[in-house]
């Protein structure tokens, strides 16, 4: 069957960004970014298992500036996805779904992930 190219609803571009929709998109985006982090985790572990020479090589690469910038990003992604994930789990049991509540919890998630990722980065990465 030929598909007719009709405009698709909802027309996201005509909506004003809201705390709910922006955080929802960010949840997916940070999740995707963290999936790439799993790849690096697997590489790090197998380098350790391969032996000291392989690990020294991997450590030189993983400790480079490019990766340090990635860790900063992953750090924010981790704390954001963690906090917003808990927010989703609370919704799943039927709580926090009133307008004022999900707006407040959204801003709390933003505040927490910024503070936690800056704190962690300062303490661990640099």
């Amino acid at each position, binding site marked *: 069957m030929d598909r007719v190219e009709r405009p698709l609803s909802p027309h996201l571009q005509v909506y004003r960004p809201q705390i709910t929709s922006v955080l929802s998109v960010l949840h*997916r985006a940070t*999740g*995707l970014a*963290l*999936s790439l982090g*799993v*790849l690096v*985790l*697997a590489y790090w*572990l*197998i380098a*350790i*298992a391969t032996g*000291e020479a392989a*690990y*020294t090589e991997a*450590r030189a690469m993983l400790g480079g500036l490019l990766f340090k910038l990635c860790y900063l990003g992953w750090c924010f992604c*981790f704390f954001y996805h*963690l906090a917003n*994930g*808990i927010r*989703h*789990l609370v919704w*799943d049991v039927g709580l926090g779904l009133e307008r004022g509540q999900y707006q407040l919890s959204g801003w709390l998630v933003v505040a927490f992930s910024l503070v936690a990722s800056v704190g*962690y980065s300062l*303490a*661990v990465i640099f």
Partner: protein
Amino acid sequence: MSLVSPLNRVLGLVSAKEGAEHWWAQRLTAIALVPLGLWFAFALGGLGDLTYDSVVAFIGQPLNSILLILTVLTLSYHSQLGVQVVADDYLHGPSMKAIVIVVVSFAHVTMAVVGVFAVLKVAFGTPG
């Protein structure tokens, strides 16, 4: 009586009876990853410069090996479920969707096996 139209049944546009399972698995792994993720972040932070000797000694501790294996497995599964939903939602050509889901699934199973194997090798191979 089936409520699916005959055309949709022929095209395969019917319930695969797997939606609830996917949803539940995603929540279970999410709950598990709250403590596991925090443990991993703080354990990694506590290892400082991540020298070879320090990471081997860390992974060699039985509790750490077990928690790392749980983290790798749960993380791979949760990541697989999440990336698959994104592929389901945003990729539209049926062949494109199929190719991406095959590649994503293979990659996640491989990452899980690599991670578990590596932890076990270090844990069992740590010289006394």
